[in-house]
């Protein structure tokens, strides 16, 4: 076990993947000498050289599009998009090409491309640097969308994402980059050397987990809001409400089974994410839980998310984002039934 920040854990995970497989390449803006604006690729350019840690032209469509071409020749490009709000120039390549090429080719072409995106808010940044666009990708078949919430998951999941034959949008909660945690480096290494490594890795990365057990309310979160969810569970617990916290880890696929198992016990579900509530990830979770556990529910599934407004100036972001009070308010509301 080693103590690492989440940024450090991703860095270590990238390094391990590059050492394991010479076909793994990093591509992005400023990821080389600078080590990325968040320093997530720090030291990799020095150790692996500019051929494997490539500073690209400033063009996101070009980055993803050329990564697709390289993946077609057997490379495993790991692309960094500098900030959430700058993924949209690549949206066409991601949605019409990256997501659909495997299907278009009847499985003849696989595109093991990972797109790393520092995402979500809370860091006092200017416009376009704090967004949570996951629903805009989860709706499109062919993509996987995951987000780690701990250094351990960050370390494991980046390697699983790289090992997966499917394209993965790897969303890194940037406000959590400097949170520390214990990381066991051996488990994922063993998994990735095992038989059916790619399948095992993909499957594990696609599953949620119960992060805290409880019996009254199921509180669902992932990535950026996990810390908040655990805090809320703590506070509610002190008030006598037992909250089970589920870390989804994956948005596509959405591990509704893990949520349903819990929901059927608690009968109450709250989901919290930074993405805008309207047409957001919580809508899908709510719809599925209602479809599949309707007669177990004591209360409607509630959603706590961003508002239907552009991400505001940073002075207002803490009012825009789900807060401890707003999560507790939702927990209280489901508990009234």
């Amino acid at each position: 076990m080693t103590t690492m920040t989440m940024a450090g854990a991703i860095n270590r995970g990238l390094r391990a993947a590059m050492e394991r497989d010479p076909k793994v390449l990093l591509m992005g803006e400023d990821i080389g000498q600078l080590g990325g604006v968040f320093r997530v690729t720090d030291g990799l350019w020095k150790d692996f050289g500019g051929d494997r840690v490539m500073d690209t032209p400033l063009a996101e469509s070009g980055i993803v599009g050329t990564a697709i071409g390289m993946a077609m020749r057997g490379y495993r490009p790991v692309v960094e998009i500098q900030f959430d709000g700058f993924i949209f120039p690549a949206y066409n390549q991601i949605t019409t090409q990256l997501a659909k090429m495997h299907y278009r080719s009847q499985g003849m072409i696989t595109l093991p491309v990972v797109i790393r995106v520092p995402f979500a808010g809370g860091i006092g940044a200017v416009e376009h640097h704090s967004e949570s666009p996951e629903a805009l990708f989860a709706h499109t078949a062919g993509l996987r969308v995951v987000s780690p919430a701990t250094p351990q998951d960050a370390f494991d999941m980046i390697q699983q994402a790289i090992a997966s034959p499917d394209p993965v949008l790897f969303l890194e909660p940037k406000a959590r980059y400097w949170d520390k945690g214990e990381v066991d480096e051996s488990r994922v290494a063993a998994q990735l050397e095992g038989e059916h490594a790619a399948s095992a890795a993909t499957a594990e990365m696609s599953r949620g987990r119960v992060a805290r057990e409880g019996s009254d309310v199921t509180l669902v979160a992932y990535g950026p809001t996990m810390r908040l969810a655990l805090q809320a569970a703590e506070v509610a617990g002190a008030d006598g409400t037992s909250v089970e916290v589920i870390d989804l880890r994956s948005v596509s696929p959405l591990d509704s089974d893990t949520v349903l198992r819990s929901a059927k016990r608690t009968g109450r579900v709250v989901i919290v994410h930074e993405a805008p509530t309207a047409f957001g990830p919580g809508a899908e979770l709510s719809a599925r839980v209602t479809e599949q556990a309707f007669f177990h529910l004591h209360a409607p599934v509630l959603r706590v998310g961003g508002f239907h407004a552009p991400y505001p100036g940073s002075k207002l972001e803490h009012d825009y984002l789900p807060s401890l009070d707003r999560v507790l308010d939702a927990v209280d509301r489901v508990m009234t039934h």
Partner: protein
Amino acid sequence: MSTHGPLSEEGLVRLLSHTGERLDHPDFGRYASELDAARLRRMWHDMTVVRAFDQEATSLQRQGELGLWVQAVGQEAAQIGSGHALRSSDFVFPSYREHGVAHTRGVDLPEILRIFRGLQHGAWDPAAHGFHLYTLVIGAHALHATGYAMAMARDGLVGTGQETDGAVVCYFGDGATSQGDVNEALTFAAVNDAPIVFFVQNNQFAISESTTRQSRVPLAQRGAGFGVPSVRVDGNDVIASYAVTQWALQHARSGAGPVLIEAFTYRMGAHTTSDDPTRYRSHADEAYWAERDPIARLETYLRGIGELSDEAVEAARAEAKELGRRTRETVKAWGRPETATMFDHVYAEPHATVAAERAWFSRYERSFADQGAHA
């Protein structure tokens, strides 16, 4: 015809005049030197067969056997000429009209129709043919081609002087040059010295829009803006199309970086079988270009030098006829894919949502079977 701007004929490399006389060119003439009469006959044959197939597909569409067909009539010289310059170590990224190039890459032409019959979106194994799938989103594949070329260089398949050296050829149209992706591809290719030939077929139209809506200047000029050497060629001249592509491929395979070719040609048919060109172009224009038919031009030349016998013409006609018959039969014999295949290959690894929906769908379908059994 305009004498400047993107429709001018200025600066076109030409090795065969439109009346069928053989010409020389100081820079590019030598790249056609290996084209002996037998080789030219082969090219003529290919163009003829491809056009016949094209016409067969059009009539299959008219009969309702295909949802759509995209004709390449008029562009055979650009496609067969460039296609003949390729070797197996090269890799092609077509857009969606490159049936001629597909033929040179060994794709069995009727297979293309799987797409247009609505069976599937891709219809051949790209790796087997060195010929990627058609891409319908204009310009998107230019970046894939560039990345692929970067990977070839990385794999040591460039600049060794061996037969294994290869390059990518990426085909797109005049309209596509306006897309951001195509311009980004030029940037990525240039700064990475990627072994890629951007082959623009300027067929003068993007559906109904004249090339003058896409550019003020000849499209070949675009390359220089990115530091990419460029050439304009008469795309209705199969010999010149071959020669400039040969030059470009040698440049790219040697490790000297990307090249852009503008092949100036004319889409003699409609954009697709859904299109009606009478709405936007004149008969005079069509007649002007009919006189410049790429196949007739080569035929005149070969006949003139006594290298196209009636037997060779008859053989091509017979092969075309047989291909037509085989195409009709093949297309009509294709069954409908199994419904459940729509869930296949969405992901390479299991995905819970797909699995759940597939399971639901099969229960749902079975419920009808059960009802049927009970009824």
